[in-house]
């Protein structure tokens, strides 16, 4: 190693944050292989695909609105539509806040953490562009998603009304980014995601209770429902000012962010992005899963466990008991079918009601399948117990079955509350449990996508053949296994006991077959 004098440097020649970013991007761009024409074509393709998707969504929403308007009110519906829409909006925003907290929102990629953060450049200058990028992206996405809603909220929305609504949504999203980023700079994010989750669960639970409690529903119905503002209302500029204020406060605190915080958030964001690109939903779930921040308060001793299958079930129960997100998801899953079935307007559309049933039970199955996913990721744990593969998978079905009994039985009971057929609806929900239990476990042991095999060319790029079948594996069993419950919703009125028995037999048959297929695939050698 040739000896040389130590480098000489001066403060005046140091690069500031913006200069560091510019130097990096200029160096990278110097060897970019894409031309301006290619990038314009990609932008056009993305814009066209987005416009088509939004137009289809808007058209569907408009037809739903027109259908609701053309049908007479259903007796027994309790919740006004705008209230349910508010609940949905609150849950969606809570999800956005939780995701922002998990991903930073300000972060540094591993390369930036290694090569930018150790420079003397002001951290505030280095990270300012990152904060603006996150705020801009969130605002743009929320604005796009709110566009079809704003255009179909009323029969004849004016351009001004739609623009105000979209701008208000964008300002709200940017403001949320500012708030979470400000908390990040103050080191006060430990409660953000749990708080957002608690708000979502509480709002959903209150709305669910209100849906079956007439007095509560009436009092909530007196609350002023949200409506699109007419021109000249100041709430949108006010929201924009508040958003700018929080973003400015957050920007001023960027220098307080520690390298390890930025590096962890950046690694999480990179992992999540890679999961999305590789269509690995389980890795995406792991990337966004909350980290345990507090030590375990209570240690279980498992005294009632005397057999191997009981040990598996007890471990699954313990894992779920220590997973607040999955528990919250189960509460929301109980409420979704009830809200769909007892909201004025939505209850006039059988597809919406059975769609709510399926979505709610699918959410519950995904939450209950958490132990199976963990077992699939660490197969050595399953091999510790003296059970065959079939017995282990069957043992992993115990806890999901119990939880799904609670969720689907409760949601069925609440749907039928006050109609004189609550027990029949509860029985119908319980009859679908075997199918959704199998869905939970089958989804947990779903195989990884095989990127080494044949790929198909799609507008999203190359994807492995059979990607659709792989991604929905698990939920397919649940949806097929609930077919008679869907029929009951379509027919309307109280479900007959014959239908309930038929649903149970069908769910048991399908569920047993799905579990058997899962066991057989686990026993196959990996190629």
């Amino acid at each position, binding site marked *: 190693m040739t000896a040389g004098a130590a480098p000489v440097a001066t403060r005046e020649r*140091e690069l500031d944050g913006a200069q560091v970013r510019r130097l990096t991007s200029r160096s990278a761009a110097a060897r970019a292989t894409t031309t301006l024409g290619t990038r314009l074509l990609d932008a056009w393709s993305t814009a066209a695909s987005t416009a088509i998707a939004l137009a289809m969504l808007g058209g569907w929403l408009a037809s739903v609105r027109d259908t609701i308007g053309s049908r007479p009110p259903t007796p027994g519906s309790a919740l006004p539509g705008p209230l349910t829409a508010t609940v949905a909006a609150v849950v969606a925003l809570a999800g956005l806040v939780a995701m922002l907290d998990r991903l930073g929102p300000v972060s540094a990629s591993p390369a930036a953490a290694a090569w930018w953060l150790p420079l003397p450049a002001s951290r505030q200058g280095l990270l300012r562009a990152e904060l603006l990028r996150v705020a801009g992206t969130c605002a743009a996405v929320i604005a796009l998603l709110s566009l079809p809603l704003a255009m179909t909220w009323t029969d004849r929305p004016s351009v001004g009304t739609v623009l105000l609504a979209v701008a208000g949504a964008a300002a709200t999203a940017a403001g949320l980014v500012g708030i979470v980023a400000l908390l990040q700079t103050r080191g006060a994010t430990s409660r953000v995601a749990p708080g957002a989750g608690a708000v979502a669960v509480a709002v959903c639970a209150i709305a669910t209770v209100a849906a079956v409690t007439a007095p509560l529903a009436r009092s909530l119905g007196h609350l002023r429902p949200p409506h699109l503002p007419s021109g000249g209302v100041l709430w949108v500029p006010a929201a924009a000012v508040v958003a700018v204020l929080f973003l400015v406060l957050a920007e001023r605190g960027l220098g307080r962010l520690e*390298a390890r915080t930025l590096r962890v958030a950046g690694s999480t964001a990179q992992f999540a992005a890679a999961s999305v690109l590789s269509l690995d939903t389980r890795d995406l779930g792991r990337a966004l899963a909350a980290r345990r921040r507090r030590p375990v308060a209570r240690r279980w001793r498992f005294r009632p466990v005397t057999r191997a299958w009981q040990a598996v079930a007890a471990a699954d129960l313990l894992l779920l008991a220590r997973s607040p997100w999955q528990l919250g998801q189960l509460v929301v899953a109980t409420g979704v079918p009830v809200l769909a079935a007892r909201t004025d307007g939505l209850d006039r559309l059988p597809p919406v009601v059975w769609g709510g049933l399926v979505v709610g039970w699918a959410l519950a199955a995904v939450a209950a399948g958490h132990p199976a996913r963990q077992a699939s990721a660490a197969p050595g744990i399953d091999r510790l117990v003296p059970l065959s593969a079939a017995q282990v998978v069957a043992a992993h079905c115990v806890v999901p079955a119990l939880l799904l009994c609670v969720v689907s039985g409760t949601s069925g009971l609440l749907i039928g509350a006050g109609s004189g057929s609550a027990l029949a609806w509860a029985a119908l929900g319980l009859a679908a449990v075997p199918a959704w239990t199998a869905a939970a476990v089958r989804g947990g042991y779903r195989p990884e996508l095989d990127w080494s095999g044949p790929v198909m060319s799609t507008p999203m790029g190359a994807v492995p053949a059979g990607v659709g079948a792989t991604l929905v594996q698990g939920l397919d069993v649940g949806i097929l296994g609930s077919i008679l419950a869907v029929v009951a919703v379509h027919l309307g009125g109280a479900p007959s006991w014959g239908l309930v028995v038929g649903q149970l037999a069908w769910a048991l048959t399908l569920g047993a077959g799905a579990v058997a297929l899962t066991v057989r695939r686990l026993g196959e050698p990996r190629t």
Partner: protein
Amino acid sequence: MGNAPESADVLLSAHAVAAGHGDVQVCAPVTLRVPAGRAVALVGPNGAGKSTVLQTLVGLLPALDGEVRFGNGPVDERQAAFRRAVAQVLDDEAFFPSLTAREHLLLTARGHGVVEPEETVISELDAFGLTDRADALPSALSSGQRRRLALAAAFVRPVRLLVLDEPERRLDVDMRRALAARLVRDRDRGLAVLLASHDAELVRTVADDILLIAENECRWLDPAAATDIVTGHLPP
């Protein structure tokens, strides 16, 4: 044997620092001083906590207990003065995929305000045997070349304290010896060095003080005993 005495030019000092992750302490509390012109080596078996101690001493992990000071104030990697003075090559290599080896080093040199960045980068590329790979992207470099690139980045800018975590990893014997000679030369010119290593020859050549990191106690070693440590034999 023992650590450097108290002096006015102590750059980094740690007093009863407990290093760990979360609430779990990984080794006994550490007390040390790293003055200018002196090299301190941390040795110990795998899993002893050397890397965790290094990360705590440079402010990348919070100390569970005790105090770490850089100069007259607490260690704070958010301070520009700390970043100007301290260079670290730990076990977290990452590179911009679209920047060549040369561009990575130029980014570091220019970022620190080096007066002649191109010449400095050329010199260090040559010193670390990367001249032929200067315009290669990180994906085209071998793991050893990427390691050398990370080490070169510590020398293309002014530095008062150099922190290295197992710098010998993925380096061949000749490069290890050259690195040891470079560290000795720069140490004699006033550079403070803090390193963790399993390489007996590197430790024996470079280190003035050797601290054994263990679960129950951390103690200063005689250089002869340190050679046994790095080869896996714990002293009684």
